[in-house]
Structures are given as structure tokens and as C-alpha cells.
């Protein structure tokens, strides 16, 4: 793409999200969402083929519907309270509709159908933006309306999401779809935490963004989109196999890696509020997530899969891609757990 156009489009995406996060007038929030959505469509369409078109179309339709629902919620709030300020508590009906709108934007179940398909149809870098940056704006809105969210609704969304994220990912070999289901599951964890302690939801969001960025960048380094090509990593960049192992296990939430930190905090918050069954169920379905990450690590790092005999020594060649951000991200995504006492600053 023309670099000028690319810069303008990326800046619009960023601007849209920032407008959403910082505005105090509900109409500006809506405008920010629309800007964000319209600007990201060309990014999703980097490659001109029907698959990308289809993915873009689906993404556009669902996000536009969600924005419409957001408008509906704002209007209901206006009718009931007569003002547009985001600082004031929402009317219950408006809160329900807005929660559903945000759920559609995030890709929570039962609105999750578009996430794997859109993720599969686009480039890895577009998928990176889709799965990480696009989650910031809706989460910020959820954070702002968190006092008035109907708890039944959000817990139902969260339970369904973790279940769908767990079971849906079991049947996949395409890496983009795996990351899509992983995002659905993590969104479920975040919304569950939103009920009791929105700060922990934000913590989960931050760590999730770091982990997903690391993973997708590692995938982008070898341009792998399937498990099969991922299993050839030992041939191309042997060092990456270790990193993939550590990052994927962290994504699955294993202590002592940093992916464990949000889960631990969320479970603590839930049990402090006398919720026992919900965190048990969430942890058990997180095991399903862990299982398919482990499957990836099994074929990638733990065993040496066979490859064609032509290029057994690709690792000797000089790498061409620049991976300047990868090392700090890997460190961040695996070793943050000892910093957890710093969370006391949040109190």
C-alpha cells in the first residue's frame, strides 16, 4: 500500500480509539467507533482476494450493527436521563443494550461467530491489529459503564465465551483461528473480572495484548499460518522454538509465567466475593485452552517434525525480517510475575 495512505489510515485508527477512550460526550464515543471501523477496513484488505473481501465485509457488517446498537443505547439513555455525559450512571435498559453492543464489538459469545472467520481471511499483521488494538476501545467503554452493568448479563456472556473459546479451539490447525478463539476466551475472563474489579480486567487486557502481540509477531517472523509450517521452526530459527514454547505456555496461564498473573488476580477477586463455581468453571475451560497451546508446542518445540529434504539448513541463512520489538516483548510476556506485589499501588 502507498506509505502515505498507510500512515493516514493508521493514524485514523489510533485517533478513533483515543477519541473513544477520552470523550465525555456519548456522541463523540460513537463517532470514534465509526472512525475506527471505517479506517481499519483498508488495513484488513491488504491483499486483494475474495477471502479478504469476505472477511472485511463480515467485519464491517458486525461492527456497524454494533455501532448502531451503541447509538440506540445512547438514545435510550438520552430519553431517560436527558443528558449526554459519560460520567453519569446509565439507565438500566441503555446499559443492557450498550453491554450487548460492546460484546459484539469484542467478539464475546454468542456474538463470536465473526472472529475466527475474519481472523482467518486476513494477513497476520492485520490480524495482530484486529486482535489487540481493536479491543482497547470497547474495553474502555465497558470500564466506564462497569458500575451499572447488569451482572447476570455479563456473567452469562463471560461463561459462554470461555466455553466457546475453549472448545472451539480444540478442532483447529490454522494458527489465526487458534488465536481468534484464544481472544474470545480471554475476553470472557476480562468481562468476568469487570463485574467485581474493573482494574483486574484492565490488567488482564494489558497482559493479553502483550502476549498476543508477542505470539503473532513470532508467527509473522516465519510467516507461518498453519501448525504444519510452525512445526518447521526448528529448521529456520531454532531459537524461536524456545520462545514460542514459553509464550504459548504463558498464554495458557501457567505459573510462573506472566500469563498466570491476570488469572490469579481474577480468581482472587471472584473468590473474595463468594463466587466459587464460576472461577472453577473458568479454570477448567482454561485447561482446554492450554491443551491446544500445548499441542502447538508439541509439534513445534518438543519434537522435531519431519520436513522436506531440500532445505534442512535454512537456519544457516541470514534472517531478513527485522524483529526489533520481539525480545522485550518476550521478556515481558514471560517474566512479569515477580512484579505482582506492585499491584498494591492500585489500591
Amino acid at each position, binding site marked *: 500500500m502507498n506509505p502515505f495512505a498507510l500512515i493516514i489510515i493508521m493514524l485514523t485508527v489510533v485517533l478513533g480509539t483515543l477519541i473513544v477512550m477520552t470523550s465525555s460526550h456519548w456522541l463523540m464515543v460513537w463517532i470514534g467507533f465509526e472512525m475506527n471501523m471505517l479506517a481499519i477496513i483498508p488495513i484488513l484488505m491488504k491483499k486483494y482476494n475474495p477471502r479478504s473481501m469476505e472477511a472485511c465485509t*463480515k467485519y464491517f*457488517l458486525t461492527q456497524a450493527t454494533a455501532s448502531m446498537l451503541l447509538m440506540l443505547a445512547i438514545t435510550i439513555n438520552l430519553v431517560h436521563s436527558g443528558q449526554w455525559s459519560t460520567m453519569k450512571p446509565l439507565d438500566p435498559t441503555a446499559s443492557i443494550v450498550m453491554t450487548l453492543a460492546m460484546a459484539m464489538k469484542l467478539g464475546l459469545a454468542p456474538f463470536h*461467530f465473526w472472529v475466527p472467520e475474519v481472523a482467518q481471511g486476513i494477513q497476520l499483521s492485520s490480524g495482530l491489529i484486529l486482535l489487540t488494538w481493536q479491543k482497547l476501545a470497547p474495553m474502555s467503554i465497558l470500564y466506564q459503564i462497569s458500575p451499572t452493568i447488569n451482572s447476570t448479563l455479563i456473567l452469562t456472556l463471560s461463561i459462554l465465551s470461555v466455553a466457546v473459546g475453549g472448545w472451539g479451539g480444540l478442532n483447529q490447525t490454522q494458527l489465526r483461528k487458534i488465536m481468534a478463539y484464544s481472544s474470545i476466551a480471554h475476553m470472557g475472563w476480562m468481562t468476568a473480572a469487570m463485574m467485581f474489579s474493573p482494574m483486574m480486567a484492565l490488567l488482564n487486557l494489558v497482559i493479553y495484548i502483550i502476549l498476543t502481540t508477542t505470539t503473532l509477531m513470532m508467527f509473522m517472523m516465519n510467516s507461518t499460518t498453519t501448525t504444519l509450517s510452525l512445526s518447521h521452526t526448528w529448521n529456520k530459527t531454532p531459537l524461536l522454538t524456545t520462545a514460542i514454547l514459553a509464550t504459548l505456555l504463558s498464554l495458557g496461564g501457567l505459573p510462573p509465567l506472566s500469563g498466570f498473573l491476570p488469572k490469579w488476580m481474577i480468581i482472587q477477586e471472584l473468590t473474595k466475593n463468594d463466587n466459587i463455581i464460576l472461577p472453577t468453571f473458568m479454570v477448567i475451560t482454561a485447561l482446554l485452552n492450554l491443551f491446544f497451546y500445548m499441542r502447538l508446542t508439541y509439534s513445534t518445540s518438543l519434537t522435531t517434525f519431519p520436513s522436506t529434504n531440500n532445505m534442512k539448513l535454512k537456519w544457516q541463512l541470514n534472517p531478513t525480517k527485522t524483529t526489533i520489538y520481539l525480545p522485550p516483548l518476550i521478556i515481558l510476556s514471560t517474566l512479569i510475575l515477580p512484579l505482582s506485589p506492585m499491584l498494591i499501588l492500585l489500591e
Partner: protein
Amino acid sequence: MNLFTSSMLLTLLILMMPVMMSNLNIYTKSSYPNYVKTMVSYAFMTSLIPTIIFIQSGQDMVISNWHWMTIQTMKLTLSFKLDYFSMIFMPVALFVTWSIMEFSLWYMHSDPNINRFFKYLLMFLITMMILVTANNLFQLFIGWEGVGIMSFMLIGWWFGRADANTAALQAILYNRIGDVGLLMAMAWFLFNLNTWELQQIFSLNPTNTNLPLAGLLLAATGKSAQFGLHPWLPSAMEGPTPVSALLHSSTMVVAGIFLLIRFYPLTENNKTIQTMMLCLGAITTLFTAICALTQNDIKKIVAFSTSSQLGLMMVTVGINQPHLAFLHICTHAFFKAMLFMCSGSIIHSLGDEQDIRKMGGLYKTLPFTTTALITGSLALTGTPFLTGFYSKDLIIESINTSYTNAWALMLTLIATSLTAVYSTRIIYFALMGQPRFPTLILINENNPLLMNPIKRLLMGSIFAGFLISNNITPMTVPQMTMPTHLKMTAIMITLLGFTVALELSLATQNLKFKSPSNSTKFSTLLGYFPTTMHRLQPFLNLLASQKVASMILDLTWLENILPKSISAFQMSTSTMISTQKGQIKLYFLSFLITLALTLLTLKYI
């Protein structure tokens, strides 16, 4: 007094002599069986002395010899009770045994182990005497078990034959089930009355005797082949004919009834047990009579006849007439043993042929056996003034005139007429008509070893009823007056049975044999009892246990419940969730439905 005691003990000692001789290897002369037979006859003579003393003076005796042990407050001794029942039974049993031993000298003369055979018979007799003269339940139990074991050894005499071993085991198993009842009764007596002595039990006269009497009833069911524990008796015909004659017609199988008779002071106060005995006996007598109708083995017919008569004895005990039942035991021994011996004579003469369909026309060739067989059958059916009449007719009269269960009475009467039917069947098939056996057989019954015992028992079958019933002390008042039709019931239905059977046999003898009807199958297969109990029950048990062990435990619990079900569930759920059609209209539909449902439920619950 001294003559009574000493002659009694002398009898028992005479019986023990041959056993001790053979154990100590003192007797070296060749004819040990003859020696045994002679000793039994001497014992019979000697046992007549105490019997006559008892009849003349009416005195009972209890000989309490040796103090065995004392368990806390209960004293166990070796004590013999010489009262009405044991004094009259002993000579009868010894007489019958003497005749049977002489018969088996002829029957088993070609057997290489004939010495051992006679020793077993003698040991059986000794244990039977112990049982009959026991004064405490412990000694009775010794005799009880003894007759059971000797029955096992003797039924399985020809142990090379698999059927004989099975029959012996079957006898042991069924008797064992009855032994449980006897042990339960012994335990109850021990706990509640602190004694096993019969005198103490009767003088204490306990009131709630349901449990021990039910136990005794179970023991009698096992030992005397009442319905439910009866299949062992026809199977026991695998043993040699002398064994069938001694054990399974006269002596061992009456031990159960004898036990119930011994306890008559307790049963006469317990109406429940009397009703149970009555009904059980009635079912037994009719069921086994039906089974006897279609048997083709001559020994099996006589065995079922024994079973039917045992049912009749149980019925008699059930209407509270123990002395009549005892009288029937004594008279039944004579003609039943003789019937078995006649069967043995026929079997041996025809070259070991037991199937009545292959006999016939023996009327002319075995005249003496024919005489004895017909006389025995007439005595069995209760022909007036033969032996059976004095006991059987009295029993039928008592049932008819007592305040009892009409259904049980009906069954007993039908069984009585069936007695005549199957007796006619034996006579018709074995003795009348044209011969159906191969022609190259030497039929010779002129052996005195065969004829003398049958002669003696023939005299007994004719006169013993008269002699015994006129000489015993009357313990109960017989029914003196009754309407004519009740008095003539027994003989009328017997005549009816004879007539019908003879007419049917003569009318159908030349007809083609049709495939059997359901009633015939019922009778031939012994009421399906062995089929269900011996085959179906173990099969179901083993099948259930195999299913439990392999299917339920291994396959289901250990494999399917957690591992396979979890993995199957996960796979099905993941395929269900991740297969999407990709049509956006479906997605919008799901959004719409979710939206509508959420608003409805959360706003307007």
C-alpha cells in the same frame, strides 16, 4: 429292666462288629458279605426282645452312657431314647435290611468290591440306628450327617459313570440345604432352652416355636425330598438297586419325617407349622405322582412313588397325626423295599435293562417276581387288609374327617388315585403283553438268595400291617364314625385309578404315538423343576456375574465413565462449536435472538 437295656445295647454291638472287624483286618475268611448279613439277622432277632418288652409293659427307656462334654451350662452325653418310635422302627428296619443284604448277595455277586459295598450298607444302618435312637439333637445330627454321607458313597458306587457322580453330588447339595434348617433349630434350642435333650425340650414346652419348627421342616424337606428340594431322589436311582431299596425307600428318606414325628409335642401346639406341613406334603404328593406317570425307567417310577408316599406322610403329620405317619413309615418300608427288589430281579434278569418299554411278558417267565410285584403294588395302593391298608386308609379317613384345608385334601385324593395309575402302568408294561426284550437272555429267578428275601418281605407286605397295628399301644383315638361315602373314598378312587389306567393302556396299545402334548411334557420334564433350578439359575447367576465383572466393572466403570466419556464429549462439543456455515444472515439471526431474549428477560422478568 436289665434285659431291655442289655439286649438293646447288644443289638447295637452286633451291628458294630463287622465294621470293627474290617477295620482291624481280623476277619480273613472269604465270605465277609455273608457274615454281615448273618450279623444283621442276629441283630434283628435280638432287637425283637426289647420291642416285645416294650409292647408288653409299655415302658420307655433312656440309656445315658457317657458324658461327652459340658459347654458352659449344657451337658452333652451319649444317650439313647428307647421309646415308642425307636423301639418299633428298629426291628422293622433291621428286618428290611436283612432281606436287602441277602438280595444284594445275589445282585452284586459279580462286583469285585462287594466287601466294601456291604461295609457301606452296614455303616449306613449303624448311622440310621444312631439317628433313630438319639435322645439329643447332637446325636441325631451325627446320625443325620452319617446317613447323608453314606448315601453319597452308595449312590456314587459306580463312580466311573458321570451321571452317578452328579447324582451323588446332587443328593449331598440338597441334603445340605435341609441341614441348614436343622442347624437353625438346634441353635434356637440352644439359645432359648439351653438344651438339646428331647425330654427337656418337651417339658419346657416353649410357646413361640415357629422358628425352630420351620427349621425342622426345612430339614425334613431336604432329607425326605419334599417339593422344592426333591430332585435328588429320582437322580439317586443311579445307585445299585439294593441302595435304592434300603436308603431311598425305607430308611434314609423317612429320617426327615421321623424328625418331625419326634417333635410332635411341639408341633401339636403350632397351627401355622401344621398348615405348612399339610400344604407342602399335599403339593409334594401330587406333583411327584404326576411326574411318575410318564417315566420310562422302572426304578424312577418307584422312586417317585416313594416321594409321593413321603408327601403323604408329611400330610399326616400336618393334620396332627404323628402316630399314623409313623405307622405308615413302618408299613411302607416293607412293600417299597420289596418293589425295589422285584425291580432289581427284573432288571438283572433282562440283562440290566431298566426301560419298561423294553420289558413285557414277564408274567410267565418270572412268576414269583410277578406275584411279589403285584402284591406290593396292591399293598401300596391300600388294598383292604394288606399292609398298606392299615396305615393308608386310616390316613385318608383322618384327612376326610378332620377340620382341614379342603384343597390339600383334594390334592391328596387325586394323588392316591394316581398311585393306582402308575402302579398299573408298571404292571402293564413290565408283566403283561408280549415280550419286548431281545430273545437271547437267560431268565432265571431260581436263586434262593433272591427268592428268600422277597418271600420274607412278601409275608411282611401281607401280614405286617395287621400284626403291627394290633400290637402297638394306641396313642390316639382313631376316628370311629363317618358317613359311608367318606369311608369308601379311598377304595373308590383307587379302583377308579386302576380301571382308568388299565382301560387306557389296553385301548391305546396299538395306536400310533403322537407328539407329546403340553401336559405330557410337564410330566416328562418333571414339572420343569430341574430345568429351571439346575440349569437356568446357575446360568443366570454366571451371566450376571460375567456382565458385572467384565462389562460393568471393566468396560463401563474403568473405561467409559470418565476417560472415554470425557474425550467423546470434548470432541463432539468442539466440532459442534467450531463448525460454522459462514452465512452472515445466520449470525445476524443469532444476534437478533440474543438481543430480544436479553431485553425480555432482564427488563421484564
